[in-house]
């Protein structure tokens, strides 16, 4: 299998309401990624776009509109889409462009401009439900995630205080991220005292809505070696989508994340993720999701993630840092851009370029993951610094 390297990364600031259009946000992130790779657009052979529901930007065939902003004029261009899982899936999408041998370089762009959906982007989720069996009941996303959070907490007798620790950590980590929308020092009490949205989900349990874009330059190993002695590689990819009938599943455990992770680990020759993964960027649109996903990613046993969090293992200076970027909770959550932000964080951390966010365990292997649809999809990317493929 052809090995694929990451050569550059770029990101815009994540904000509640950007003045720039989606095209401009895409351009800004793509330009930064190209600059950091030392490439020009003319070096790029293909473009892989990721962007979540068209209803956010209010644009039908959104990717066509975004294409020139993402550098795709005159180039092969596709858009992948797996709901909230789109961001990390962008990395998979770009990976097969290069790994297939079709292209030597691929520009990956994740964009979301949620603020165009007025008065609130939650409106874009009202029509995600089954039009026969569910839509008539008028559910929204926060409600169904409240069901999932409740089920998870009940199954393992998890206290809200323990879940809130994730929110405290990620908002705090984001203070060191120059793109962050919600970097702040908060306490467990702040989370527990924040407004109840749909119990047990409170305001500080949930990530903000955001505008932003993030980008990566992918290339073949041969190209990468011309630019750097110590490339970062995408050594594992995985994705799985569970049934749309979410009401028929036990929500306590994301088995689709487990399947996706195992697919990626098999490819990356990882047989003991707890030992072989140095840090992780699990998807954290809600604080409990980081815990849920750590378990799905096999980074700990079922029900153990809150314990690791309480013991400080997931802090930046811990044994297994999670969301050192600040995650969706702290950096912001422009859906498809968030996942690419997580891939950017893997790249920067593995290169030792994360500045104040740098984890302390000299990482060589890391995993990023995203989740979405009707609590249904897991997308996973494993990156590794340098060396031969194991």
């Amino acid at each position: 299998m052809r090995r694929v390297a990451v050569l550059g990364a770029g990101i815009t600031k994540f904000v509640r309401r950007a003045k720039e259009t989606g095209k401009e946000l895409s351009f800004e992130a793509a330009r930064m990624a190209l600059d950091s790779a030392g490439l020009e657009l003319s070096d790029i052979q293909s473009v892989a776009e990721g962007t979540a529901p068209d209803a956010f930007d209010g644009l039908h065939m959104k990717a066509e509109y975004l294409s020139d902003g993402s550098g795709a004029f005159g180039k092969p261009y596709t858009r992948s889409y797996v709901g909230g899982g789109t961001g990390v899936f962008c990395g998979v999408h770009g990976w097969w462009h290069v790994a297939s041998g079709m292209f030597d370089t691929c520009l990956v762009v994740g964009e979301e401009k949620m603020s165009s959906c007025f008065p609130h982007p939650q409106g874009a989720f009202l029509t995600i439900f089954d039009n026969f069996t569910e839509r008539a009941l008028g559910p929204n996303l926060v409600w169904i995630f409240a069901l999932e959070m409740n089920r998870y907490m009940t199954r393992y007798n998890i206290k809200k205080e323990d879940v809130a620790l994730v929110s405290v950590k990620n908002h705090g980590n984001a203070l060191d991220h120059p793109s962050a929308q919600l970097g702040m020092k908060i306490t467990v009490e702040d989370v527990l005292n924040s407004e109840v949205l749909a119990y047990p989900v409170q305001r500080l349990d949930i990530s903000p809505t955001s505008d932003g874009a993030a980008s990566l330059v992918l290339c073949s190993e041969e190209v990468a070696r011309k630019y750097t002695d110590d490339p970062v590689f995408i050594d594992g990819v995985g994705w799985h989508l569970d049934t749309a009938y979410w009401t028929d599943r036990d929500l306590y455990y994301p088995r689709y994340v487990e399947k996706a992770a195992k697919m990626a680990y098999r490819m990356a020759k990882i047989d003991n993720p707890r030992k072989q993964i140095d840090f992780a960027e699990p998807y954290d649109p809600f604080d409990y999701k980081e815990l849920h996903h750590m378990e799905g990613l096999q980074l700990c046993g079922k029900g153990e993630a809150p314990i690791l969090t309480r013991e400080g293992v997931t802090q930046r200076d811990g044994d297994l840092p999670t969301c050192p970027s600040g995650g969706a909770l702290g950096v912001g959550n422009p859906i498809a851009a968030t996942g690419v932000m997580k891939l950017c964080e893997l790249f920067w951390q593995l290169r030792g370029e994360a500045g104040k966010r740098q984890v302390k365990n000299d990482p060589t292997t890391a995993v990023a993951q995203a989740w979405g649809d009707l609590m249904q999809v897991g997308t996973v990317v494993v990156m590794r610094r340098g060396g031969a493929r194991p």
Partner: protein
Amino acid sequence: MPRVAIVGIGRTALRPLSSEISYKEMMFEAAVRAYEDAGVEPRKDIGSFVGVSEDFWEGTSIFDEYLPDQLGGALRPVCTIGNEGLHGLATAAMQIMTGLVKVAAVESHSKVSEVDRPQKVMQMAFDPILNRPLDFNPHVVAGLEMARFLGDSRSLRNDCARIVAKNRASGLDNPYAAYPAKLTPDQVLGSADAFSPLKELEMSAPADGAVVVVLASEKKAKELAGEPVWIDGMGWANDTPTLESRDWASARYARWSLAQASKMAGYGTKKADIFEIDDTYAYKEIQHAAALGICKAEDFRRYIEGSAPPINPSGGSLGCGHILDATGLFKLAEAVEQLRGTAGKRQVKGARRALVQSWRGVPTTSGAVVLLSNGDIGPTGAVKGAVA
């Protein structure tokens, strides 16, 4: 580069209305046919499922949620590509070429009969700042492009009407066609002005239908019972999305797509025995034929009336109906039938290679090209049994 084969196709007949079945049932029908055709068990053999859809056409946000169940893809690698069907095909082919996936399925469908006002959906694809406030019917773009393309050529104008007569008549031999008809060019020119110079009958009519295609690696394809059709080349490209800065005269996206596909295949248009190319509007067939190097626009009539490889023997979108982003996969399925020699009354004798091309429609400049060959052509490109 690793070879990828098409090992199964399944589709529903295209229809103007399909009110008695849901899109899920339509997808299921096409999928079962494709899996039967390929001889694969989806829960065991298929490593990746690729859907091609757009939320606004479906009336469902995050539509990719609803892909897995009726395709047999629940709790398996499933993703959606928001482009044309042939882009979805290229996606599945690339996944196989990585070595990660051995068998992949691609699905796309149209349930456009349930869309209240399709032109309102199309309008939402316009630039929200520069174009949408003008509030014009999106087909106006096609009318403008046709005017630019025709210039003051009366013969091209008449050729457009002939294409409608040709394609709808070809549809008479196609059991999958929704709009077969015997028409004369004069009847076409006598139809109502739609978006001048575009006449009502020069626009393909929308239809409902679903298509599923199964792809496999070379090794897997040879293990399966059926005769594979090989993907020799594939290319796809976007021109500018802005109306203000595009080349209105020629379909550059088709030319660029062909260049990529030909480079991969090692051969080009001249080797193809049949063409299934985009004819969303009648003039587009000529424009695309010119961009793909099939014939010059001014030679189109002579080309069609001669004995050269036929263009859209299926009846095209004008004869079969337009099924949104599934259109490219439908054309591909037609080409596969031709290369297998199973196209019935519309069979082109001795068809060994085919060129399939798609376009995403107004207001996009997104196109794709696939070059296919059957088992008569060896991996080196030589015709089997031929004396060098």
